[in-house]
C-alpha cells in the first residue's frame, strides 16, 4: 500500500520527464481500452448484420434463381432496408448470366416496384450503393434515370462516369451514343479494359460507327488509344477508318494500333512497307498482322524479319510464320533445317511447339 501511495505521489507530476512519461502512459492505456470497447461494438454490429444477411439470402436466393428460369408470379415484399442487399445479389446474378436468364432478372426487379427507390439511390454518397443503382437503372431501362445518368456521365470519378455510360447504353443505345462517344474520346482516366467491356455489351452498329467518326477527327495520341477499341468489329466505317489511317498517318503509335486491329486482307499492301519501319514495335505488329491476314506471298518478306535486330520482332515473326494461312508444315521444317543462324532454328522450334500446345 505504501509503495502504491509513493507511486501516485506528486513526484510523477513535478519531474517534467516523469510527468510526460506518466501522462503518455495513461493516455495510451486509456486509448487502448476505448479501442477495445469500439472493437467489441463493431463485432456485435457485424454479428447482427450477418444474421440479417442470412435471413435475406434464405428468402431471396431461391426467388432470383427461379426468376432466371421462369416468371416469378408472386414475389415477396422487399423491405426498404434490404434494397441494397437485393441489388448486390441481383447484380451478382445479372453479371453471371446472359440472354433469357438476364431478362428474367430484369422482369423480377420491375415486378417488385422498386424503380423510385432505385432512382433515389442514384444520389447516395456511398459509392457501392450509387454504382449498383446506376447499373440496375441501366439494365431496367428506367427512362426517368436518363437525366441523372447523363449528369453522372460527367462525374469526375472514373468509375461513376463509366458505369453511367454503360447504363445509358443499355437504357437507350441509339440516343446515348452521341453522349457517350465524346466521353470515350475525352476521358483518359477510363480504363481501356473496362471501356472495351462496355463496348462489347452494346450493339456494335451505332457505337462503332460513331466511334470511328470521332477517332477520325481526334489528335494522333488519342487516335492510338482509341483505334484499339475497333478490334473485332466488322462495322464498315471502322474498317474504312483503319485503312485510311494506315494510308495517311505517320505516327508510329497510331500505325501500331491499326496493325493491332487489322483484319481485312485488303490491308495487305499497306502492311508490307511497315515491315521496314524504323520503330521495332511497328515492325513487330506488322509481322503479327501478316500472320493473321497474310498468305503464302508474305513468306519471303517475313523470313527476312527473322534476322531483325530486336528479339521481340524475331520472336513474333516466328510465331506469325507458323500461323501464316496457306503455309504447309514442310516449308517451315525446311526453313528451320536450313537456317544459317542458330537462333532462327530455336525461335521457329519454339513457335511450332507453342502452336501445337495451343
Amino acid at each position, binding site marked *: 500500500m505504501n509503495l502504491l501511495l*509513493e507511486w501516485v505521489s506528486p*513526484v*510523477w507530476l513535478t*519531474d517534467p*520527464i*516523469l510527468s*510526460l*512519461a*506518466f501522462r*503518455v*502512459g495513461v493516455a*495510451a*492505456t486509456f*486509448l*487502448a481500452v476505448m*479501442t*477495445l470497447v*469500439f*472493437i*467489441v461494438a*463493431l*463485432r456485435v454490429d*457485424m*454479428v447482427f448484420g450477418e444474421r440479417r444477411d442470412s435471413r435475406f439470402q434464405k428468402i431471396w436466393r431461391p426467388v432470383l434463381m427461379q426468376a432466371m428460369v421462369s416468371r416469378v408470379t408472386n414475389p415477396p415484399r422487399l423491405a426498404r432496408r434490404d434494397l441494397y442487399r437485393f441489388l*448486390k445479389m441481383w*447484380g*451478382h446474378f445479372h*453479371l*453471371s448470366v446472359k440472354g433469357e436468364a438476364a431478362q428474367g432478372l430484369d422482369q423480377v426487379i420491375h415486378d417488385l416496384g422498386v424503380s423510385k427507390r432505385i432512382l433515389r439511390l442514384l444520389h447516395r454518397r*456511398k*459509392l*457501392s450503393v450509387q*454504382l*449498383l443503382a446506376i447499373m440496375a437503372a441501366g439494365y431496367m431501362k428506367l427512362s426517368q434515370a436518363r437525366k441523372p445518368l447523363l449528369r453522372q456521365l460527367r462525374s469526375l470519378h*472514373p*468509375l461513376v462516369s463509366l458505369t453511367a455510360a454503360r447504363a445509358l447504353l443499355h437504357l437507350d443505345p441509339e440516343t446515348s451514343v452521341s453522349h457517350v462517344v465524346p466521353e470515350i474520346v475525352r476521358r*483518359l*482516366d477510363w*480504363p*481501356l*479494359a*473496362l471501356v*472495351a*467491356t462496355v*463496348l462489347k*455489351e452494346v450493339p456494335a452498329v451505332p457505337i462503332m460507327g460513331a466511334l470511328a467518326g470521332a477517332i477520325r477527327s481526334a489528335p494522333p495520341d488519342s487516335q492510338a488509344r482509341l483505334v*484499339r477499341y475497333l*478490334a*473485332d468489329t466488322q462495322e464498315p466505317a471502322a474498317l474504312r477508318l483503319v485503312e485510311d489511317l494506315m494510308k495517311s498517318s505517320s505516327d508510329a503509335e497510331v500505325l501500331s494500333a491499326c496493325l493491332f486491329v487489322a483484319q481485312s486482307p485488303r490491308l495487305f499492301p499497306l502492311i508490307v512497307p511497315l515491315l521496314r519501319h524504323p520503330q521495332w514495335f511497328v515492325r513487330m505488329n506488322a509481322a503479327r498482322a501478316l500472320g493473321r491476314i497474310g498468305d503464302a506471298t508474305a513468306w519471303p518478306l517475313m523470313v527476312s524479319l527473322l534476322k531483325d535486330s530486336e*528479339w*521481340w520482332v524475331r*520472336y513474333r515473326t516466328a510465331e506469325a510464320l507458323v500461323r501464316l494461312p496457306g503455309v504447309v508444315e514442310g516449308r517451315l521444317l525446311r526453313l528451320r533445317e536450313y537456317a544459317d543462324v542458330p537462333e532462327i532454328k*530455336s*525461335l521457329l*522450334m*519454339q513457335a511450332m*511447339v*507453342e502452336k501445337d*500446345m*495451343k
Partner: protein
Amino acid sequence: MTINDLAIFTQWFYLLFFIFMTAGYLVLNFLSLVSIRKFVQWHDFMNLPPVYSGFEMPISILVPAYNEGATIVASVRSLMQLDYPQFEVIVVNDGSRDKTLEVMKEAFELFAFPGEGPRLLATKPVLRVYASRLYANLRVIDKENGGKADSLNAGLNLSRYPLYCSIDADSVLERKSLKKVVQPFLEEPSTIASGGTIRLANGCRVDHGLLVKAGLPRNLLALMQIVEYLRAFLFGRLGWSLINGMLIISGAFGLFRKDVVIRSGGYRTDTVGEDMELVTRLHHLMKSEGRRYQITFVPDPVCWTEAPEVLKTLKDQRIRWQRGLAESLWIHRKLLFHWRGGTVGWVSFPFMVLFEWFEPLVMISGYLLTLLMAAFGIISFQAMVAYLVTVMGLGIMHSVNALLLEEISFHAYPKFWHAMVLFLAALLENFGYRQMNSLWRLMGLLQWMFRREGQWGEMKRRGIERAA
C-alpha cells in the same frame, strides 16, 4: 557535463524517440484510413463477377523456387486456378538440391522447350527450359544456383507479357488476386508497381492451394506475427502508398511493369533484400529522370503465406530482413533529402532511416541504459517502471489501433473470439516479442555492417495445407 545531466539528456532522448516513433506510425495508420474508406466504399461493387473484354493486361507470374519439392506442385496448381483472362506461370528452379524439378516434371508432364527469351538480364547459366503438356501457360526454367534475385532475372528474360508478378513458391493466392492487384495499373496508367497485402496462413484452412477458411494459429509466435503484419506491413504500407512513398513491396506478392524494371537493371544479386532494393531503385530512377509515376499498395487480402513458428527460423528471417533494409537504404542513400526526392526523399526515406534502420539500436540501448541507470541508482525504480510502462503502453496503443483498422475494413478473421484473441496478442506482443524482434534486427544491422554473406532464406515449414 555531469553524469546527472547525461542521465537527464538520455531519458529525454529515449522518451521523445518512442513518442515520435509511435506518433509517426499512428499518422501512417490514419493516412491508411483514406485508402480503407475507398475500399469499404467500393468493395461490394468491385466484388461483382468480372466481365473480361480481352483488353486486360496479360501477366507473367514468376515463381523462384529453391528446395521447394514439398510444396511446389500444390502452389503451381493453385496458380493455375487464378481467375484472370491471360497469364503465364514461370517457375524458376534455382539449382535446388531436393526433388523440386523431378516432382514438377512428373506432376505437370514437363518436356524440354526450345527458347530462353531475349536475355535482357545477365543470369547464371540456364540449363534447360521446360513446358507442360497439361498447362499451355506453364514454363519451368532449370538453372544453376544463383539466388532469388538471379532466378527472378531469369524468369524476366523468359516472360512474354508487359506486367510480371513475383511471388514466393509457398504463397497462397486468392483466385481474384491478379484482378485486384492489376487494378491500379488500369486506373492510373503511370503505375509502375503495385503490392498486394500479405496475410499469414497459419491457422487457416487451405485446400488444394486455395484458402478455404481464415483462422488463427495455436502457435503463440505465429499469432504475434499476425498482429505484427497488421500493424507494420498492412496499415503502415497503406499509409505510405497514399502519399506515393512506399519503399517496400514484399517479394511474396508484387506486380511490376516489366519494361521499367528491365530499364532499371532488373534485380540486384548482391543484396539479401532484393524486393526492397528494387522498389527503392525504381523510386530513385523515376525521381532522377523526373518522370511521373505511382507505386501503389492494394489493401485487399490477396496473398497468404506461412509464418515461421520456430524461434530460430523467425530469428534468421528477421536478421535477413533487417540486412536487406540496411543494404537498400545504404545503396540509395543519395535519395535522402535529394532535391528531386519528393515524398520519398523527404518523408518516407528519412522515416525509414530513423524508425526502421536505427530503431533496433535505439530500442535495445534504451532498455539496457534504463536498467543500468536504475541499477546504479541514477534514476529511481519508479522512473524505470514509468519508462517501461510508457514504451509498452505506446506499443500496445499502436498494435490495438491496427486491430481497429482491421475491424472497420477487412475483418478477415470472422469469429468474435478471433477479435478477442488478437486483442490479447496485441497486448502480449509488447512483453517480449517486440523486444526480441528488435534484438534480432540489431543483429541484422551488425551483420550488414560486417558484410556477412547472404543466402536463400530457407525456412522450416509445416506446410500450409497442414497449418490449420
